[in-house]
């Protein structure tokens, strides 16, 4: 089986390589027998990846106290409205650094440290971030200045710069938020000349047969960031670990720092500090009364230690190169921190509505007949889905943007056929380019010099799916431009406007490179070493591809264009502006289902909410129970896709027996029911940077019991989901936070909150989900075959009342596909329920044009949860006159057997206009 090979120790395979050939076959067969013993723990080859101790820059800085080595030169301090500058002196070397602290109007302070004078150390290019924030500053007020420190304030933020040794303390509203270098772990390795007695690892480093020539020598930076009186920090994805980050001075594997280095980690473990495919150097710290965020804009390999004590969470961040460019978000609350971060790194691109539906993927849907069969399987089993995916086998020999014409002789007709039922297709396109001069992508790119270079300056040649490959140097805007042009309909043969793209392997994955990636001394555009911008390769490739689809869209629809949909595996800060990511090659195990929740919550807290885990697990074969539970959770993943490895059994939703098919059908229909709510949440993510999935503490920031809860999560502010992540579960403990009213999302029954968790009975049919009182949630209840087929359907409003009998919510509507919304072609309504009056008003938001769209859609049902009981019931006065009797009915059509809700039937309300409905007790 697949795992058998995977668990093979590399030593054994190496050994095989040295053995006399005549013996090889015999040994190979012996090996097969040996390997037939499952060795799951050995799947992730820990020894194929570097630890801090095996990494020169990390080991020479980790926990190394520099004493009072770095001082601020008091006389050098200059305050110029919003910016304070000064000189930092590295006393051990007599080297000068320039310190710059700037206060920005968008709720953050930026701290820059670079060598003085500049030696041209790498800085992350501005196109990774958004622009516009740089010059919006908010002046500093000098509160006091002594020979030891200067104290400045800006808004509610106070900054104290201590001179000897250098340290910086930031507080918000009088509460200590962050201390920089309070433990003297700060270090800044300056550029230098090679000395004979330089320690090993300064100018060259070897590991697993790869030698990294380090022409620039040591240039690491250590940042000492302490969150005083905090107990919880979150963020720095991507890894399969807890939501509230554990200390890294514990037992293995948590004796290793968290690592930020985008890597293709084969069969990653479900509980490990090791870094995976993407990196966002953002951390949030939360305590009662204050959330603070930090963002170190640096794309080099980075290790982050977390050490918790009773009084603080101390963190040490060690990067291999670059400069200090630290953003400290001081808005005070998690939403404020995320909004501020979004001002810098951008907000989530508003996705096409179809991409929020269900995606069916597999390595591989084999041929056109297979595609047709899977597509019709969804219809015959009445399970909605929107997108069918094709993995690498659809290409001609892994030459991306081509088709295997024996398997897919008529790709255009195939896509048109899917589109006739409102469905789209996605094909995979990876950044490695097969070195084949008859392959047009290779020959054009080679001729134009578009490939990443090795240290000798010639085209880098690495190994990936197609064999010997070169890699597009997407860090160059010229290469990205060229790459974007490859996606127009005339260039990408066999593509249609219904085809979207999946970028895999863009860490980049290089099978024969160090740690399955590129050599750090490879050279990029501008003669930048790969070491400096490694973590940007993924986002740049993703960007180039998304630009390609944007370009294609502008040709197909010159007026409004077409929003790109490109899924990526690798990511960095800013990826949210480009497209969704998924958590890579997980496994069909309960533990992987479980860890998917903290993984996605973490991504939401670091500005990248449009993400998902492969439903069912990529490696291995899920049984019916795991499959069912995974779908029941997966419908709440912002990106909802089922995917499976080449060698797994087929697992389309109807292959697990009728009961399971019915349960998955109900679950997926539930996703489609929620699309208006989810799309509206995406609109908020798009305008304000707010997450879709939220940890409980995000919504209940004062309840300390919830700060580490990852067993439950919120979808927006209105729904609480309790995943079931173990087999054979008949009851679960659910925590329903106090201070809110909760309603069972199937039956509508009110569930009283409790300080502690409560036991809830469950069946295989559903996992516990609750509406939170105080919210109005828009739904579309008709179980269509796709999101496109829902376009004309009426809405249902669920009005879940809080203790005061009030609720509010909103509904965002646009064409679901083009950029017309940016010109105001959208509809955004606010609904409020107060004093028994339900009101619809237009929602106006600053910074975006007002909505001008009207649609003929109506509201077919209004469901009230938590109305006080009235003996003779209620009637509704619509527009002040037309009276309709309220009826008892089900909360949701998915569970018509529960008639617990008070329902306003067919009120005929237009979603596009203002109206008011008054509820009157009879």
């Amino acid at each position, binding site marked *: 089986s697949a795992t058998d090979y995977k668990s093979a120790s590399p030593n054994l395979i190496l050994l095989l390589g040295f053995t006399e050939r005549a013996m090889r076959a015999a040994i190979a067969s012996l090996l097969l027998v040996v390997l037939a013993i499952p060795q799951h723990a050995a799947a992730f080859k820990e020894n194929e990846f570097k630890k801090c101790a095996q990494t020169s820059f990390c080991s020479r800085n980790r926990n190394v106290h520099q004493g009072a080595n770095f001082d601020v030169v008091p006389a050098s301090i200059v305050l110029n409205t919003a910016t304070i500058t000064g000189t930092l002196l590295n006393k051990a070397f007599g080297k000068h650094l320039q310190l710059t602290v700037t206060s920005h109007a968008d709720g953050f302070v930026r701290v820059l440290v670079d060598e003085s004078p500049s030696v041209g150390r790498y800085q992350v290019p501005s196109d990774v971030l958004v622009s516009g924030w740089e010059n919006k500053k908010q002046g500093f007020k000098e509160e006091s200045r002594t020979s030891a420190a200067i104290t400045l304030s800006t808004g509610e933020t106070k900054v104290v710069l201590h001179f000897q040794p250098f340290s910086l303390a930031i507080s918000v509203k009088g509460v200590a938020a962050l201390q920089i270098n309070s433990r003297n772990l700060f270090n800044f390795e300056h550029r230098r000349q090679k000395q004979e007695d330089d320690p090993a690892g300064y100018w060259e480093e070897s590991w697993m047969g790869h030698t990294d020539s380090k022409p620039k020598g040591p240039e690491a930076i250590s940042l000492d960031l302490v969150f005083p009186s905090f107990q919880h920090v979150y963020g720095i994805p991507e890894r399969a670990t807890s939501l509230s980050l554990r200390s890294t001075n514990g037992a293995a594997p948590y004796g290793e720092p968290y690592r930020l280095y985008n890597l293709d980690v084969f*069969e990653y473990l479900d509980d490990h500090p090791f870094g995976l495919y993407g990196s966002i150097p953002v951390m949030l710290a939360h305590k009662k009364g204050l959330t603070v965020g930090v963002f170190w804009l640096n794309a080099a390999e980075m290790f982050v230690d977390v050490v918790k004590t009773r009084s603080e969470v101390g963190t040490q961040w060690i990067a291999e190169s670059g400069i200090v460019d630290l953003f400290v978000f001081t808005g005070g609350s998690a939403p404020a921190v995320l909004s501020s971060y979004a001002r810098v790194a951008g907000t989530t691109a508003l996705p096409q509505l179809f991409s929020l539906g269900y995606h069916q993927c597999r390595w591989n849907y084999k041929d056109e007949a297979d595609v047709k069969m899977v597509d019709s399987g969804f219809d015959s089993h009445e399970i*909605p889905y929107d997108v069918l995916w094709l993995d690498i086998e659809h290409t001609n020999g892994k030459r991306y943007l081509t088709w295997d014409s024996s398997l897919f002789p008529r790709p255009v007709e195939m896509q048109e056929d899917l589109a006739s039922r409102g469905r789209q297709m996605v094909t995979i396109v990876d950044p490695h380019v097969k070195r084949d001069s008859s392959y047009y992508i290779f020959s054009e790119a080679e001729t134009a010099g578009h490939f990443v270079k090795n240290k000798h300056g010639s085209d880098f*040649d*690495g*190994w990936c799916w197609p064999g010997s490959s070169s890699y597009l140097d997407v860090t160059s805007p010229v290469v990205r431009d060229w790459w974007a042009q490859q996606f127009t309909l005339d260039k990408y043969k066999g593509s249609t406007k219904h085809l979207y793209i999946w970028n895999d392997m863009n860490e980049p994955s290089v*099978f024969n490179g160090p740690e399955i990636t590129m050599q750090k001394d490879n050279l990029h555009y501008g003669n930048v070493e790969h070491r400096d911008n490694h973590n940007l390769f993924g986002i740049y490739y993703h960007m180039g591809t998304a630009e390609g689809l944007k370009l294609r869209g502008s040709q197909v629809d010159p007026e409004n264009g077409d929003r790109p949909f490109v899924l990526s595996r690798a990511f960095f800060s800013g990826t949210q502006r480009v497209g969704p990511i998924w958590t890579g090659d997980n496994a069909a195990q309960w533990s992987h289902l479980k860890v998917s929740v903290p993984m996605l919550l973490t991504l939401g807290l670091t500005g990248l909410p449009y993400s998902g885990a492969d439903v069912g697990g990529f490696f291995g074969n899920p049984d019916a129970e795991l499959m069912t539970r995974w779908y029941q959770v997966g419908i709440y993943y912002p990106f909802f896709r089922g995917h499976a490895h080449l060698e797994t059994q*087929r697992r389309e939703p109807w292959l697990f027996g009728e009961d399971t098919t019915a349960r998955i059908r109900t679950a997926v229909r539930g996703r489609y029911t929620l699309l208006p709510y989810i799309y509206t949440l995406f609109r908020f993510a798009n305008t304000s940077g707010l997450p879709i999935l939220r940890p409980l503490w995000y919504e209940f920031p004062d309840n300390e019991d919830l700060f580490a809860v990852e067993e439950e999560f919120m979808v927006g502010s209105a729904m609480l989901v309790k995943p079931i992540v173990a087999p054979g579960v008949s009851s679960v403990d659910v925590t329903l936070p106090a201070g809110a009213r909760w309603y069972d999302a199937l039956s509508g029954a009110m569930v009283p909150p409790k300080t502690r968790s409560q036991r809830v009975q469950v069946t295989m049919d559903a996992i516990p989900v609750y509406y939170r009182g105080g919210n109005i949630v828009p739904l579309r209840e008709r179980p269509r075959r796709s999101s496109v087929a829902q376009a004309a359907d009426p809405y249902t409003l669920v009005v879940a009342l809080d203790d005061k009998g009030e609720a509010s919510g909103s509904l965002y509507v646009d064409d679901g596909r083009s950029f017309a919304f940016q010109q105001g072609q959208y509809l955004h309504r606010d609904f409020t329920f107060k004093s028994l009056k339900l009101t619809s008003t237009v929602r106006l938001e600053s910074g975006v044009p007002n909505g001008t769209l009207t649609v003929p859609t109506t509201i*077919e049902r209004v469901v009230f949860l938590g109305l006080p009981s009235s003996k003779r019931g209620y009637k509704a006065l619509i527009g002040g006159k037309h009276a309709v009797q309220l009826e008892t009915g089900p909360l949701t059509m998915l569970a018509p057997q529960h008639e617990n809700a008070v329902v306003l039937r067919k009120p005929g309300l237009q979603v596009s206009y203002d109206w008011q409905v008054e509820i009157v007790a009879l």
Partner: protein
Amino acid sequence: MQALLLLTLLAGVVLTHGNSLRGVNPDLASHYSGHGGTFTCISGIPKTIPFARVNDDYCDCSDGSDEPGTSACHNGRFYCRNLGHEPRLLASAFVDDGVCDCCDGADEAKGKCQNTCLQAAAVRKEALRGKIQLHEHMLKTKDDYVERARAFKEELQLKAPTIEEDIARQQAEVQNLKAEVTRLEEEEAARQAEIAAANQAAEEARRADEAQQTAVQAEDSGSGQGEDAESAETVDNHAEEVQGESQGEREETPEERGRRIASQWTSDPEAAAVEGQPEEHLNADDSDGGDDDGDDEGHYDGTMDDDAEGQFDYPDTEAEHTEYHSERHHRQQRPEGSAMAEERPPPSEWEDLMMFLDLVKQWAARWMHTFSKILRDGIREDVLAHRAKIKERSRSRQQRWESAKQAFPQPSRPRTAVAVSSSPPAASAVAAVATDPSSPLGLARTAAFTAERQLQQLQKDRENIGTFLNRPMDFGPDDIFLALANKCFSSYQTRWTYEVCMFEKAVQKEGNSNAVTVGRWYGFSEDYKVMYFSGGDECWNVGPRSMTVYLSCGLDERLSDGEEPSTCAYSAKMTTPAVCTQAELEELQQQMVNLEAFEDEVRAQIMKDEL
């Protein structure tokens, strides 16, 4: 709505209130009469609603029955009349969703869809026509079975009276011929011994000559021709080993590393086997298939496999061969490991039929060939001439061998002296040389062999007589199942193989392990639609195993759906033309008559409707 009304009228259904409602299933029409101005949900939570709420685009009933013609309910069913084709019950979700699901387009707003029922009907008619032809063919086969069974029985009856006598005679004949062979072999052995002695003397002389030459040369000259490649490889390996020793541990090349990592992702255990197959390299285009292979299928190639194979090298610059071809070649060869696990939905009736018709053609050709051959050879004639022939054969053995020799000329390729026979060791040397069939020994052997075969045949006849003639056994109407005498049919499920041997036993096997007998022949059910096997191997706590095989009309014998519904009681399904009936054919023919009778009317109506 008007169109639907007209169509309904045309169909001759009495117009009721319910029929004017969109999407109502005629079987449920009585629920939609509107009597009393109310509607009662057909199932689910009991509820009665004003009739005005039926099809008002709001779901009131928990079973969706109040909205047969809209998409309001999750679980509603929309009835498409599909006049001219087959009616269909569509999920409510597909009503008014912009996709034409019903061939009459009734599920979408008027004007949105074209009526494609006639096209669909034409396809259906074609399918029906095929089914009829198929059934006619199966009935014809059934007649053939009866004839075959009769001939078989008659032959046994003819042979029965003298069978013991014939066997005794034949046994004597075999003994005589074998004695002759032994005599000739001894003669030949003596002759060979003389030759060998002479050869050995010559060889010793030659060795003395070669004593000065190098050991390597001596070794080489000793190698057989067929081992050349292997020995070349040995030399190669030797060289590499020496190099390896001198360099100490060899590092992976970048390619090897890339391949090793790529191989993590898939097991592809077949890769080694596939690459090892000589035919992979037979194709001229594929002459260095190893390269192509690596290019296309980077992740399929386990480094381990490559190493084990040890014969690939991967040039940096790839020559462009017909990689594409190679890849496809590969695909065809790749065992469908994942495909086996696949449960593809059943093919549509149409595809099924097409496949079926194809099979009919092939099978018919095959069967006609066999059957006409039997007729040509003349079973009866054969039976009548049987005894005469036995004598004739033994007399004309010599003659027949001569003619056979002419028909199958000897290969000119010289044979190597390799002993492959199962002859006793003493005779092996003789057997090795005396393979010339035209020699006296060769001729004697052939004669003995032929006589033995004939003896076996006679013994089989005796067994058949015992089984099928002398036991009171039921072979179905006209003894039709005798046509399947001595035949076994098997079916492979995901784990188990079931094999059913007619009138004998049924077994179950797992992989290569020993078979479990799940029943011995017991008999048919009264209607000959079921076969029983009982008294199989003992099953712990249950008793002897048993198996039931359900028969149905089909093109030929195919066993399927083997399972164990309750412990140690097995069941399977089997198709056979032997149970096809005229009534089934007539039913199909009637369907065709109905279809054709309706066709013109429907066409006229649809045209009118479109106007």
